[in-house]
């Protein structure tokens, strides 16, 4: 909330010499600060009406929302309508003009119905993305209590009956007002019987074109990406990472996108052309407005530790029906060919003192050539994690594809201690942002300091209170440093972030090898605002 300054001299002069009979006129002549104090308390819809009252009211309203804002709320009300009502009322309880909305719901809610209701409330000309997740994070719309809610496994492969019993109701809504940016939802559409690659290329061209059309610059400042459950996002991320400059923030959830709507209606017409594999919420600079500067920062909390030495993939077979890879390997520097059983035996011996068997992954270093469209392919190196399914006397079985003979890999296991240590680092990094603002406030320059106005969390479904042994662990670095600043998020299956210049705190990978699709991690998207240097308010 903004404070309405009200110095005694200003207050006195505004009513001096007025007869108390002329009250309407008295109110009309109230100075701007008093009116500011009233209008800033209006809920969003009434605030919008207030800006239509008169020219002077309009300018006061513009002043009140000259700064960007995020607003989020969570509801666990089992009634879909009531839950939507609760979160919408909450996010619209103060002055804000929605520019985009991200809605995350439990699988017990019908995503299409949610989309229609939210649209009716927030308008038809903003991008809205509805995702279905198996966990939501946010502040309760009614009780203000902060909650990390995790539901039964959605993708754990248990049977349909079991699945039905795990249906859950809940919603978290995040809306943003970002003057100075333009926001649009851009889908990755794959027509039937088309390979993925050219579709990804045209998806990236769409993002560039949109960005160029609003800002004159081909690259957005940030992209929040939501993949469809059945889509392999590795290629999408690899190409996006390649195509976007290092200062473009890319974060998201590998699976979960359900339904969405673009702000520009003509875009919505093309959905029928194919299957939607992913949708990107693209944030690009608005060339027409440049008061102040909105920045996206990323923080990363790792949740896995390496175990054992390095291996080199020997024979590799892929099974495209269940999207898995079978492989044998050699220890790096050794010639002996190892089967799955003996590899896993070695790793499990190293992990013997673990009480709970941890989740195992292999992190594969891949040297590949990447290009967009007809460009000349360029070499890139990245790490990709593959979940370990098991091993026998022949092969080691892992999730996913894209491993080649000769690739170097290493085992990683989920590690709460490593995660806690990295949470502490994230906390410190966020604290530094806060301290910078505090020290400038101390110098009387607080209004001009970088101001964190919101955050979005993408936490691995494997984390949460069962992993840490305490509630709200993943949210705590943000909540402790920025109490009262809107913050919400999801538990996802495949949290995504690419290395970028605005990364604060611990880095997910050693340069120049990058990793975009993580396991057991938490990704924090933090939005901040630098007011223009000469700002008076």
């Amino acid at each position, binding site marked *: 909330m903004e404070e309405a300054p009200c110095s005694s001299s200003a207050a006195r002069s505004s009513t001096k010499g007025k007869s108390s009979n002329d009250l309407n006129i008295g109110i009309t002549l109230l100075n701007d600060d008093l009116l500011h104090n009233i209008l800033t308390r209006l809920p969003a819809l009434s605030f919008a009406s207030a800006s239509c009252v008169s020219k002077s009211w309009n300018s006061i309203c513009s002043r009140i929302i000259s700064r960007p804002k995020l607003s989020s709320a969570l509801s666990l009300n089992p009634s879909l309508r009531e839950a939507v009502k609760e979160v919408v009322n909450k996010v619209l309880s103060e002055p804000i003009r929605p520019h985009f909305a991200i809605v995350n719901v439990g699988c017990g809610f019908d995503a299409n119905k949610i989309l229609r209701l939210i649209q009716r409330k927030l308008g038809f*000309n903003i991008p809205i993305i509805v995702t279905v997740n198996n966990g939501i994070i946010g502040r309760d719309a009614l009780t203000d209590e902060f909650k990390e809610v995790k539901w039964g496994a959605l993708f754990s492969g248990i049977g349909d009956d079991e699945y039905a019993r795990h249906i859950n109701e809940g919603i978290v809504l995040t809306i943003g007002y970002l003057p100075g940016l333009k926001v649009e939802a851009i889908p990755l559409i794959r027509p039937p019987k088309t390979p993925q690659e050219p579709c990804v290329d045209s998806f990236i061209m769409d993002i560039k074109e949109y960005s160029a059309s609003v800002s004159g610059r081909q690259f957005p400042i940030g992209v929040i990406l939501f993949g469809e459950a059945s889509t392999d996002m590795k290629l999408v991320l690899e190409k996006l990472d390649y195509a976007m400059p290092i200062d473009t923030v890319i974060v998201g959830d590998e699976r979960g996108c359900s339904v969405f709507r673009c702000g520009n209606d003509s875009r919505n017409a093309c959905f029928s052309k194919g299957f939607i594999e992913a949708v990107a919420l693209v944030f690009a600079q608005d060339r027409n407005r440049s008061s102040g500067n909105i920045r996206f920062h990323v923080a990363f909390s790792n949740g896995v530790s390496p175990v054992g030495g390095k291996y080199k993939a020997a024979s590799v077979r892929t099974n495209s029906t269940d999207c898995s890879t079978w492989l044998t390997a050699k220890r790096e520097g050794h010639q002996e060919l190892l089967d799955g059983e003996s590899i896993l035996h070695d790793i499990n011996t190293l992990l013997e003192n673990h009480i709970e068997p941890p989740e195992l992954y292999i992190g594969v270093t891949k040297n590949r050539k990447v290009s967009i469209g007809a460009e000349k392919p360029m070499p890139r190196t990245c790490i990709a994690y593959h979940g370990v399914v098991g091993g026998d006397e022949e092969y080691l079985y892992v999730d996913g594809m894209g491993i080649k003979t000769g690739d170097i890999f290493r085992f990683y296991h989920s590690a709460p201690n490593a995660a806690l240590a990295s949470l502490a680092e994230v906390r410190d990094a966020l604290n530094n942002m806060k301290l910078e603002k505090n020290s400038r406030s101390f110098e009387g320059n607080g209004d001009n300091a970088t101001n964190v106005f919101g955050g979005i969390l993408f936490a691995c479904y494997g984390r949460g209170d069962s992993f840490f042994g305490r509630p709200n662990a993943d949210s705590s670095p943000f909540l402790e440093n920025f109490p009262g600043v809107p913050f919400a998020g999801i538990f996802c299956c495949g949290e995504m972030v690419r290395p970028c210049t605005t990364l604060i705190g611990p880095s997910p990978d050693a340069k120049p090898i990058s990793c975009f699709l993580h396991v057991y991690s938490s990704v924090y998207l933090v939005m901040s605002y630098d007011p223009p240097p000469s700002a008076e308010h």
Partner: protein
Amino acid sequence: MAEEVSSQMNSLSISETNPSSSATISLVSGDDIVFKVEPTIAKEMETVQSFIDETDGKITTIPLPNISSHDLPYVIEYCEKSIAGKITKEFEAEFVKKLNNEEVKELFLAANYLNIKKLLDFLSQVIADRIANKSVEYVRRYFGIENDFTPEEEAKLREELAWTFTGVDPDDEDEN
């Protein structure tokens, strides 16, 4: 409870001279009614307190020409509660229930004139609540504001804000 009532009686005892409490401050409303209040109450009213300070406390009768005898008791009541630390949601709800729109506006101006930050903030919220979910026309009438937009300008504004013009309460006119 008995205490509260007696203190209220005390503050409302209009222009009765009470020689034993020479420290009280006399507030004179615009229609020449004298209200005697404790100095602690005067402290809540920054405008009054600074007047007292400027005259080194020699003058204890303060004319408040902009405030009527109808409004002043409300202001005093709020200040008393505030000193006692008894501003609760229940009290505030009861307090505003008694007030019609005109009175809220008058009190708002009084709070502004007396420079009582807490009361001003509270009444700002009350006014905000009363114009919330009302049409633009209602708000203009409420504040007595002339629409200075051209029809074209207003149409353009409303178009931009089209999403908000659903679910406005029907204009219920004020009780007076």
